[in-house]
């Protein structure tokens, strides 16, 4: 069979001519010499299908591609947004048609039934009411049960062409003839056997969707729609006792592209105004292209959030930490979380290590008091800077030093305060690397104008080598 070229897919026009998948290319050409043939590219098909599945997540938060030619939507709890189930199927097909994609749709209680009806049903769109699976499936060919081709051939040889013909057969006889596969598939289609839609059922997502009667183009129109979506979603969050940590807005353009923006919060929130302000900054990032037809707001991450306490005046009680969280969210949303920090004093004598930075909303620490005997500058250079210093007497502060082209004559000095290296730490900034750990002798000095500096001499005084001096900070 090698070298035989086979039709893998056909469009509606070719189907009318009688060309079907599985037919040899030569036979197809014989039916219509003008047939337009494209090489099959399964990898590109799979990629396109995955993209289309992503595009479909405007209809339901749970979408997967299904086989090589299908997309499966779990529409539990979604249909009411589109009127009813039939309305949803109509909208899906209409939206796909606008993309130039012909599609068949089926809605049923089981994956098996939806699969069967979408591929073998008589109409382009089928909706099976609850409890009517048996009659709906009975006329379909057995191939609609997602069986291996050999099993289909076996059933047909046995004279069992339609699914309905399997209904009266004793299960044991069916299993004895065809193995467990047929019985299982039949049970799955009829809802007698459970079939999870995906290995892990997704957590119930909270989302809110808005379809635009006319494609929208302006930031104002997006803003108006987003405000409505937020109001709806925060109400839902309130009903569930939840707050959002992460929200994303997907804007579906009429050209099939999807624009997304997302915001995050430090604490769960369902405050419409606060969430709106976070989004407000980012709306301009959405490129509407030729227009946006759908907007979907999804709470991607939620956490429990108790109902707000009401004060006696009916207003929400003031809450400083919530106000601070709201402010931090706004600042971090624009400047990045790393732009914000809270200093925490640390028990280390090494000036560079005396402060640790924690997240701005970290749990409040017990107040740490700095030992008042250890005078520290208010400005500390990130790295000590070498200075030229004239210090004629060993173990005395310099009389004169020069830093950044400015000479300072020292009038008064305090010190030294010897700060020894933390030899037990490998990453100690003092004496790190290959050199031996070095202590520092710090001096507080005041120049003629009254400016007060923090200087140190690296290492102990040695008569045989010139001392190295550094400037490290400024006092008030």
């Amino acid at each position: 069979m090698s070298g035989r070229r086979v039709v893998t897919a056909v469009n509606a026009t070719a189907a009318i001519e009688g060309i079907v998948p599985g037919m040899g290319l030569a036979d197809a050409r014989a039916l219509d010499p003008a047939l337009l043939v494209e090489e099959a590219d399964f990898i590109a098909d799979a990629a396109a299908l995955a993209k289309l599945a992503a595009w479909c997540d405007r209809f339901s938060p749970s979408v997967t591609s299904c086989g090589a030619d299908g997309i499966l939507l779990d529409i539990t709890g979604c249909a009411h947004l589109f009127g009813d189930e039939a309305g949803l199927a109509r909208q899906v097909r209409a939206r796909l048609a606008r993309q130039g994609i012909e599609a068949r749709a089926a809605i049923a209680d089981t994956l098996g039934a939806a699969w069967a009806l979408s591929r073998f049903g008589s109409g382009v769109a089928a909706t099976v009411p609850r409890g009517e699976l048996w009659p709906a499936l009975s006329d379909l060919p057995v191939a609609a049960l997602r069986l291996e081709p050999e099993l289909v051939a076996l059933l047909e040889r046995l004279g069992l062409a339609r699914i309905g013909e399997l209904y009266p057969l004793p299960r044991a006889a069916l299993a004895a003839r065809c193995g467990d596969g047929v019985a299982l598939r039949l049970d799955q289609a009829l809802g007698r056997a459970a079939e999870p839609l995906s290995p892990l059922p997704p957590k119930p997502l909270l989302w809110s969707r808005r379809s635009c009667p006319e494609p929208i183009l302006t930031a104002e129109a997006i803003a108006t729609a987003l405000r409505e979506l937020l109001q709806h979603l925060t109400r839902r969050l309130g009903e569930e006792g939840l707050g959002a940590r992460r929200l994303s807005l997907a804007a579906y353009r009429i050209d099939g592209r999807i624009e997304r923006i997302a915001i995050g919060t430090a604490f769960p929130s369902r405050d419409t105004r606060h969430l709106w302000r976070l989004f407000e900054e980012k709306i301009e990032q959405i490129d509407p292209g030729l227009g946006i037809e759908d907007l979907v707001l999804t709470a991607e991450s939620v956490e429990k959030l108790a109902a707000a306490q009401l004060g006696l005046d009916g207003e929400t009680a003031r809450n400083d930490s919530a106000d601070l969280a709201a402010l931090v969210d706004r600042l971090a949303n624009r400047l990045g979380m790393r732009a914000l920090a809270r200093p925490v004093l640390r028990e280390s004598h090494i000036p560079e290590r005396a402060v640790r930075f924690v997240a701005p909303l970290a749990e409040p620490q017990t107040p740490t008091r700095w030992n008042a005997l250890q005078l520290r500058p208010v400005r500390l250079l990130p790295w000590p800077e070498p200075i030229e210093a004239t210090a004629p007497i060993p173990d005395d502060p310099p009389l004169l030093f020069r830093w950044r082209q400015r000479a300072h004559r020292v009038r008064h000095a305090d010190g030294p305060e010897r700060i020894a290296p933390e030899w037990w730490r490998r990453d100690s900034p003092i004496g790190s690397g290959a050199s031996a750990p070095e202590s520092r002798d710090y001096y507080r000095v005041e120049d003629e104008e009254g400016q007060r500096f923090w200087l140190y001499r690296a290492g102990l005084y040695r008569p045989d080598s010139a001392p190295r001096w550094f400037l490290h900070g400024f006092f008030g």
Partner: protein
Amino acid sequence: MGEAADTARQERLADLRRYLAEAEGFGQAAAVLPFGAPAIDAALPWQGLPLAGLHEIENAGPAEEGGAAETFLAGILARLAPARPVLWCLRRADLHAPGLALIGLEPRRLVLLRASHERDILWAMEEGLRSRALAAVVGEIEALSTAASRRLQLAAESAGVTGFVLHRSAGSAAASAAVTRWRVAALPSVPVAREPGIGRPRWRVELLRCRGGTQAAWDVEACDATGIVAVSAALADRPALRQISAAG
């Protein structure tokens, strides 16, 4: 006749000043933080620093050698009540929390924000001033434009959060909507009882601009552990100082 008319005029002027002060939100009822140094408080129309407003503080020396203005400011922040957090927006991360803690400004009250552009700092300051979560917002700005100062002043008035613009060096005298502008310069310390070493640190604090007030200057002892400055006893009653700055 001239004298009576003069008195009437003075009274009318005083009335107008009071009216303007109240219209601007700095009436007697508005929240004020006294310095605790009578000489300074007396020079301010509000007997202290009005809290719902913007204040500018600058260092006298070159930008890279600050310290005095930061410490003066930290002393004010340490005494703000209630002790809500302070948002301090800076461009260089060289603020040292242990040094501030020695003046009474607890590190846990500090929320530091580092931004590389001044426009981001202005934006963050405005956001902070409109938030009710903070006691004060500090922004390190080189040159504050008149328009930016107006925006910040309005934001500070609206939520009652105190705004401080910290200039690391002197200069940039653009018209400003800020309520006050201060300059702080280090002065040689006064030796303590012939002991060697650095004595009590001192500053020259100048009130360069004050809405409804006049310029003034004081030599003070730098903030103590509770953030309070003291006008040097030996210099407090020298009227010459005020004349110097009024002339300059």
